């Protein structure tokens, strides 16, 4: 047995989870898909005293598409989210990003909520949450609160979730523009690995092809996945002419300030950041322009 010993409990409701977390939230860890947590436990990078299984709580598994946003339950599996047609229409970036997450076997088990709470700086779902400005609904014994992505991600593997809180659902804002497009890509050593650098963009255009709303972001090698709303705002009104894109993208790569490791130096990551962001801006623009 590779993991350190722990006590185990299977929760049947969110109330039960909150009650247990109130009693010993500091020593307990929630397990959803477990596709990141279990490897960390196997390597003993983490040794929770108590594991609370939330996989059997049906109330945490749902997808609903509403006027202003789509809502997904925290324990909805990645494979379920990836194949939901209505969700793909409402928030296309989610499905585009999930194609880069792990493999068939890990997506069958992994949850989008788990990816967000785990908050790996190179993971795809936190980047999507940052770009769209997703809202995380956190539940504890005292009630619920909603935290925006910009405040949710605090650092590598660190979020604003308190020890007595459980992620209940995620709200993904919808862009209501008629001509809207998005795109996601990444470079990793093998497909399915964490990204050396990931880039994504979402753009709305008017009937003349001028951008009316833009956001984009980067992950991998950084401290947390980042969106660049201020830089993106400079592209509003443009048709993504070469000079303005180059200027914005270079500023983003500098602000991203990636670190280096065995796999990629900071310079290489900065270059990837600029190249991939340019490609994704252009791809999102093209997808937006092709909307009828």
């Amino acid at each position, binding site marked *: *047995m*590779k993991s350190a010993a722990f006590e185990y409990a299977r929760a049947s409701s969110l109330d039960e989870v909150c009650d247990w977390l109130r009693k010993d939230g500091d020593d307990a860890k929630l397990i959803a898909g477990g596709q990141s947590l*279990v490897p960390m436990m196997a390597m003993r990078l983490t040794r929770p005293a108590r594991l609370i299984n939330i996989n059997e709580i049906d109330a945490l598994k749902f997808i609903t598409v509403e006027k202003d946003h789509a809502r997904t339950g925290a324990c909805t599996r990645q494979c379920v989210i990836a194949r939901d047609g209505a969700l793909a229409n409402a928030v296309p970036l989610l499905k585009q990003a999930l194609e880069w997450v792990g493999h068939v076997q*890990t997506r069958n*088990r992994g949850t989008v909520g788990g990816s967000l709470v785990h908050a790996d700086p190179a993971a795809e779902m936190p980047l999507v949450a940052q770009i769209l400005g997703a809202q995380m609904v956190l539940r504890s014994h005292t009630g619920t609160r909603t935290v925006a992505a910009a405040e949710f991600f605090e650092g590598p593997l660190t979020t604003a979730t308190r020890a007595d809180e459980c992620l209940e659902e995620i709200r993904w804002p919808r862009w209501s523009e008629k001509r809207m497009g998005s795109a996601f890509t990444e470079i990793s050593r093998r497909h399915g690995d964490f990204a050396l650098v990931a880039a994504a963009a979402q753009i709305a255009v008017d009937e003349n092809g001028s951008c009316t709303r833009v956001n984009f972001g980067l992950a991998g090698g950084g401290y947390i996945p980042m969106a660049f709303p201020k830089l993106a705002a400079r592209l509003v009104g443009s048709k993504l002419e070469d000079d303005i894109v180059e200027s914005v993208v270079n500023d983003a790569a500098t602000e991203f300030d990636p670190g280096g490791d065995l796999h990629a130096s900071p310079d290489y990551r900065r270059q990837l950041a600029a190249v991939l962001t340019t490609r994704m801006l252009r791809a999102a623009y093209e997808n937006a322009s092709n909307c009828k």
Partner: protein
Amino acid sequence: MEKLYPVAIEVNGKPRSAQVPARLSLVDFLREELRLTGTHVGCEHGICGACSVMLDGDPVRSCLMFAVQADGHRITTVEGLTPADGTLSVLQDSFCEAHGLQCGYCTPGMLIASQALLNATPNPSEEQIRDAIGGNLCRCTGYRQIVDAVKLAAGRLAEQK
């Protein structure tokens, strides 16, 4: 003495139950408690895919689940792919025919991943096959013959219908 927890799972159609430590992985439970050693243990942290099994019909990594989490669920291992008479399944025979294995270590995981594909997509494209086995590492074949084997099996299964 470490605390034990009850597990009751349907494995290859048969109900199996035991008392196990919470930290016992599903693959160790299958191999060491149930002696179903067809499922292989590779990296033990979710990279290689050798331990793939089906959980309620979907392929998952059995090293990334604790046996207690599978309580009440249905597991299919590579042993469960063979017909009752003990002969090879169409997919297994196609792996032999197309030289889809050499050392055989990755094979149980490859068979589970590709059988799950064929169950959902009877006539898969090469891209779909490569995507389905994308989470399974093979150090011998270079994957070419594995893809050929899955294609061969898809054709044979279509003929049987």
